[in-house]
């Protein structure tokens, strides 16, 4: 009985240690960042050597990068997951692909940044641009999307596939009309979580897209853009005497965007889970 109680206390304490930092970060950011938030802060570019004004170009840049990442990562990720879940025969080749995906997830993000610099910025001559940054972030996101999509696909009951095939549907018709529609919630959840993580990354965009300071908003995918995580890094290390208020505000906006996306992912998941009944 006594031992039970010790273990119970240990488990509880561990859980609190996990939750405490999260609560601490959120509390700090809200208490210090909230006063910085204003209409001007959200809708104006930085002024006076970034010591005043707002962060609009960084917000817009992050939104563009998020969309770009989703556009590139979703089709590739879902198609790869469909291949792995529906078509790939077990064997050495499939094992190799899975191993590659697991390793892709473990690559440090700065390596993605350098890879993007070498491949997209230099070799493909996309330059430092939203295109290069989105592609780099898309690769970073792929393992999350592939893994989540594959799980969602394999959760679709085998009996649906059999029913469709027994009606004379081809494998692709079965996949497109029965399997994918029933996996969509898991796929969307994976997409949002993956892209949400990408939105907060600094290293991959450092060499591929991020601009130190731009007064104008980007006009095409070949333009550079500012982005919230990099802007925060710049404010903290490159701008002497930057008012902490602006830094806290920037961090809070970034957190709101990322947490917001996670919340959307969670609500998509519960909504669909309630809707399906098998």
């Amino acid at each position: 009985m006594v031992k039970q109680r010790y273990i119970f206390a240990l488990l509880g304490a561990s859980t609190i240690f996990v939750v405490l930092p999260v609560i601490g970060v959120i509390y700090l950011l809200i208490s210090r960042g909230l006063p910085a938030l204003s209409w001007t802060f959200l809708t104006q570019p930085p002024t006076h050597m970034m010591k005043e004004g707002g962060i609009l170009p960084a917000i817009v840049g992050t939104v563009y990068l998020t969309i770009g990442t989703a556009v590139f990562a979703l089709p590739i990720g879902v198609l790869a997951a469909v291949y792995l879940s529906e078509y790939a025969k077990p064997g050495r080749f499939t094992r190799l692909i899975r191993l590659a995906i697991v390793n892709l997830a473990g690559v440090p993000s700065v390596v993605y940044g350098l890879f993007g610099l070498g491949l997209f910025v230099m070799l493909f001559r996309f330059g430092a641009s939203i295109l290069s940054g989105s592609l780099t972030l898309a690769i970073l996101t792929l393992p999350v999307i592939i893994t989540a999509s594959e799980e969602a696909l394999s959760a679709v009951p085998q009996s649906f596939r059999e029913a469709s095939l027994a009606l004379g549907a081809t494998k692709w018709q079965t996949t497109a009309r029965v399997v994918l529609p029933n996996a969509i919630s898991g796929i969307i959840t994976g997409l949002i979580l993956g892209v949400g993580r990408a939105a907060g990354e600094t290293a991959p965009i450092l060499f591929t897209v991020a601009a130190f300071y731009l007064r104008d908003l980007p006009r095409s995918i070949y333009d550079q853009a500012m982005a919230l995580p990099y802007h925060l890094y710049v404010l903290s290390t490159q701008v002497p005497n930057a008012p902490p208020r602006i830094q806290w505000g920037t961090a809070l906006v970034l957190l709101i965007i990322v947490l917001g996306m996670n919340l959307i992912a969670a609500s998509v998941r519960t909504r669909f889970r309630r809707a399906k009944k098998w």
Partner: protein
Amino acid sequence: MVTGVPNSISVRDFNVWYGDLHALTNVSIEIPFRDITALIGPSGCGKSTFLRGINRMNDLIPSARSTGEIWIGDRNITAPGTDVVELRKDVGMVFQRPNPFPKSIFDNVAYGPRVHGTTDRSRLSAIVEGSLKRAAIWDEVKDVLHKSAFELSGGQQQRLCIARALAVEPQVMLMDEPASALDPISTLKIEELMHELKKDITIVIVTHNMQQAARVSSFTGFFLSGELIEFDESSVIFTRPHDKRTEDYVTGRFG
């Protein structure tokens, strides 16, 4: 020159292995068209494996391989290069557990015609109505066609699955214990339905229920340990079987 037998599903020396497991051994049988044939036997005797050979559903199992021939009329469906998609259009299947798609009742029945290229709305409506009528469920669902199929009872779902299979106008209907998950009233409805369908469709039904096999089928095959022990008119199998093992099984001495 080996050919098929007119008006029957003709099976010759059919063998199936799952990896090293010899699931079906040298099965030869003539299943007559436009009638009901029941397959009985204890669990694991190979009757479902045999059924799934007729529409090549065993192909989905990576470790499965087979030898021998199955002819449907004059068509060898085990020949290399057989278009299994085309085959499954002609050989429908109803599974043990009702497995409607998570779609509306209408979309469930329209699924088959749609994948085979029918897009015309009024044509689809006609097919859906006709199929639901043939499956004796039209009166129960005609006002709720756009509700989810999951809102139906188990028995209704199974008849919906039969309607879904009928919508592609199969010649043959394979039924894998279609009533084993249903209550007696629903079971009765499905049996009545089978009697109607056999006028133009060949039905092969796997069942664990001996009374059901005796009630619905004209012919019965008894499987044991992967072999077809006896195949004859149902009246013979259930009253004076030739093989001692068949007699033991149908009289409930084992199995």
